């Protein structure tokens, strides 16, 4: 079995500091343009949350040469697909266009990197604040377990740690954002030296580099902003809390701090989450959902976050099952994961399904370009995008047990119980 995908990369830095990654793959007549800015909600401060995300919205509201709704209009009218997303550690913007329309994508992205401020106004900000408040209602406030999930992170890290507040921010902070703050945020973080531009797809690298230089080269440079790291050791003492929500069934969340994304222990955490909870034959599903039928669902997963990693277990109780019973069952499984290596079959399942998942992601050009931007942004090594499978396969079962023993012990965990509030819906 071989991957018949190109892997060759070319990397250049423009004089203004823009990091350019070129990944030619001429299989389909498409180009993925993927731009990462190394700024996310972690660069906000308490009382001013939700800013990075609100700002992402403002970047779709036009720039000096692009009208208010014209970013999407230009791209959609040539059959392009575009969006952006904001995360704790970064914000990305991306579009995939027919290969002969590469210039259009470069024109749009460079215009909002270099010429955004003249087009900003209060009316656009007011409109997008309303949109984002509705986004928050739709994703969090009007969703079962939405606010308890935010509470989980408040319990896991202290108030001055940047993962304490949600990426989308609080309603009060979103409402309070001012135009002046938007301008300042842009000037600080949206500089060429704080960005990675990846092109993936059907182009000639020399020609594409010329085009990138033409559109982005004249944007003034500057030093990359200074950044503070926010590492945290495991929780020193266990944290338990019980909250009510407008739900029918109780749910348990267990959460732990782990080493950050990219470390050997983070990959161990990720593989262990798959060992424990992926598929019907996984120990958690087979025991809690299939066998004892005390859970309606169960999941284990990790966050690919840059300051610390986060390991989570979530299970929803069947009607009539107490949250205490379910929580104890989850702790038992974590205890077993620490006391002995996983069964050979479970480890093999997790390795193979991780491999299949990596292959699946590599299928689309968009995702490959996004991975290249990510590894360039976090580790200055876009080529690490091709090495994820090896990072998982080098881990042994005893290492997973050792990791569970040190990081996933009860003494270091948050246990959050959500119970029905009994009120009207």
């Amino acid at each position, binding site marked *: 079995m071989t991957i018949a*995908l190109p892997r060759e990369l070319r990397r250049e830095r423009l004089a203004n500091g823009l990091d350019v990654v070129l990944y030619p793959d001429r299989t389909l007549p*498409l180009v993925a343009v993927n731009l990462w800015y190394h700024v996310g909600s972690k660069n906000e401060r308490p009382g001013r949350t939700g800013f990075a995300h609100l700002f992402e919205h403002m970047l779709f509201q036009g720039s000096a*040469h692009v009208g208010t*709704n014209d970013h999407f*209009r230009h791209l959609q009218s040539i*059959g392009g697909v575009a969006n952006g997303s904001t995360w704790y550690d970064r914000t990305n913007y991306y579009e*995939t266009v*027919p290969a002969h329309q590469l210039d259009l994508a470069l024109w749009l992205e460079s215009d909002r990197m270099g010429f955004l401020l003249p087009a900003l106004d209060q009316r656009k900000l007011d409109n997008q604040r309303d949109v984002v408040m509705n986004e928050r209602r739709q994703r969090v406030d*009007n969703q079962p377990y939405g606010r308890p999930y935010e509470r989980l992170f408040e319990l896991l890290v202290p108030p001055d740690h940047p993962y304490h507040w949600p990426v989308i921010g609080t309603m009060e902070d979103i409402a309070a954002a001012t135009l002046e703050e938007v301008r300042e945020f842009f000037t600080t973080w949206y500089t060429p030296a704080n960005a990675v531009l990846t092109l993936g797809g059907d182009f000639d690298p020399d020609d594409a580099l010329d085009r990138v230089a033409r559109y982005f080269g004249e944007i003034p440079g500057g030093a990359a902003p200074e950044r503070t790291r926010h590492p945290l050791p495991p929780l020193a003492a266990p944290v338990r809390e019980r909250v009510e929500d407008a739900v029918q069934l109780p749910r348990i969340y267990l959460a732990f701090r782990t080493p950050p994304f990219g470390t050997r222990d983070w990959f161990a955490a990720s593989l262990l989450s798959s060992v424990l909870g992926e598929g019907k034959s996984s120990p958690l599903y087979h025991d809690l959902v299939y066998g004892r039928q005390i859970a309606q669902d169960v999941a284990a997963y990790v966050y690919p976050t840059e300051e610390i990693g986060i390991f989570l277990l979530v299970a929803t109780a069947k009607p009539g099952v107490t949250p205490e019973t379910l929580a104890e069952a989850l702790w038992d499984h974590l205890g077993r994961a620490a006391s002995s290596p996983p069964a050979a079959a479970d480890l093999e399942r997790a390795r193979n399904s991780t491999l299949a998942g990596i292959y699946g992601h590599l299928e689309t050009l968009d995702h490959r370009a996004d991975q290249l931007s990510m590894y360039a942004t976090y580790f200055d090594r876009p080529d690490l995008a091709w090495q994820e499978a090896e990072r998982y396969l080098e881990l042994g079962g005893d290492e997973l047990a050792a990791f569970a023993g040190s990081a996933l012990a009860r003494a270091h965990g948050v246990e959050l119980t959500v119970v029905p509030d009994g009120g009207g819906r």
Partner: protein
Amino acid sequence: MTVALDRSSPPKAGRPAPFHFPRFERFRLDNGLEVFLAPRQGVPTIELSLLLPAGAERNPRDRPGLATLTAALLDEGSLRRTGPEIAATIERLGARLATRADWNGAQIEVDLLARDLATGVELLAELAREPQFPDHELERLRRQAMTELIRRRDQPALLAEEALARALYFDTPYEHLLLGSEQSVPTLARADVVEFHRSWYRPAGAAVLIGGDFEPAAARAMLERSLGDWRDLPAAPPSEILAPRRDGRSVLIVDRPRAAQTELRLAHVGIRRDHPQRNRLALLNALLGGKFTSRINLNLRERHGFTYGASSRFVERRSAGPFVVGAAVANQVAGAAAREVLAELDRLRREPVADDELAETQSYLVGVFPYTLQTTGGVLSRLQELATYGLPNDTFDRALDEIAAASPRDLLRLANDFIRPEEILIVAVGPAEQLRPQLGELGPVEVVEIAPAPGAPA
């Protein structure tokens, strides 16, 4: 850079590369089973799918949920293995298996690494032909379904879809959830499942699809071996589902007194997937509410800030599915948002669309099509459409031609024939006290409560 760049207008495009739908083979085994093979290089994975004419449209009148339960039980025990043995074998290979039913059919889907193709083909045959439907698994899945029905009460978007289906499709199979109801699920017996399987899991009307990294000749031989001797029995086509006639607009409020937002839907019955105007209506819908720059999204989101996103669609099924406009809106603007949607529907029926707006929408749909075919899954889902609705091989090339050729006059006529604001149903899931005064002018209002969960304290 020496010459300053002129940024004042979008750059000129280069020359587009020609695009054709990826090549595939389509043929039948002697027993009538249809086969689609779409090999492609890239990553060493394969996706297999077996479609069976055993969808929820076949549910007996008093057995909503039966097709779904039957499909869910396919991998819970065969002649050869128990459910947990099947799961363990498949998952150990890093493969993913799913069995499910929708309105049009049942599906068994397996994604696996390229080296395991033979295992995948044998598995499809085992699950379709030899399921045993053990009592304890049936009982467990019924309980799981009942729990799922209980917690739907927490999810406003699902409540809106449910209320909409019940109102538009009263007394037809489409009235129900695929999962069934709290009344029907406990009554679904093993004998029902066995009979449903015997009647509808058969090669005539079924199709197997394989996409990804494989040799077509080898796959064909495997299919002959595993499924070639599956005995054929003729199966009656499903009867068409006809929604009751509606007269006039009406408003249905599902009361959630403390909801932070209102899930709003405006809907009426749409068209069948095989309707001759389907492609032009897809174009009309894209312009109205099927893309980010559609009229409805630009109006509700970018002009008014009522919502994070608003969209419309014709839901495609063998019989006519609903036409639905949907958005989650702030509670205090639900009435204003509904009126804006109605105004957009009226405008579409009154004024021909501008040439440039039409051209932009046409080139979006034509241009974005190759993008949707980047993955094996993307190609297979198109081939599934051909199989499910019995469509010819040139369906998608023709669809793009029809879309490219449509005129503003065509769309005006279509809007008048197929969009009917005068009979629209408005569903709003949110605080009734706040919603009733806002929506009362739009039609007679009915407010429904969310029933307490079975076993919950009153």
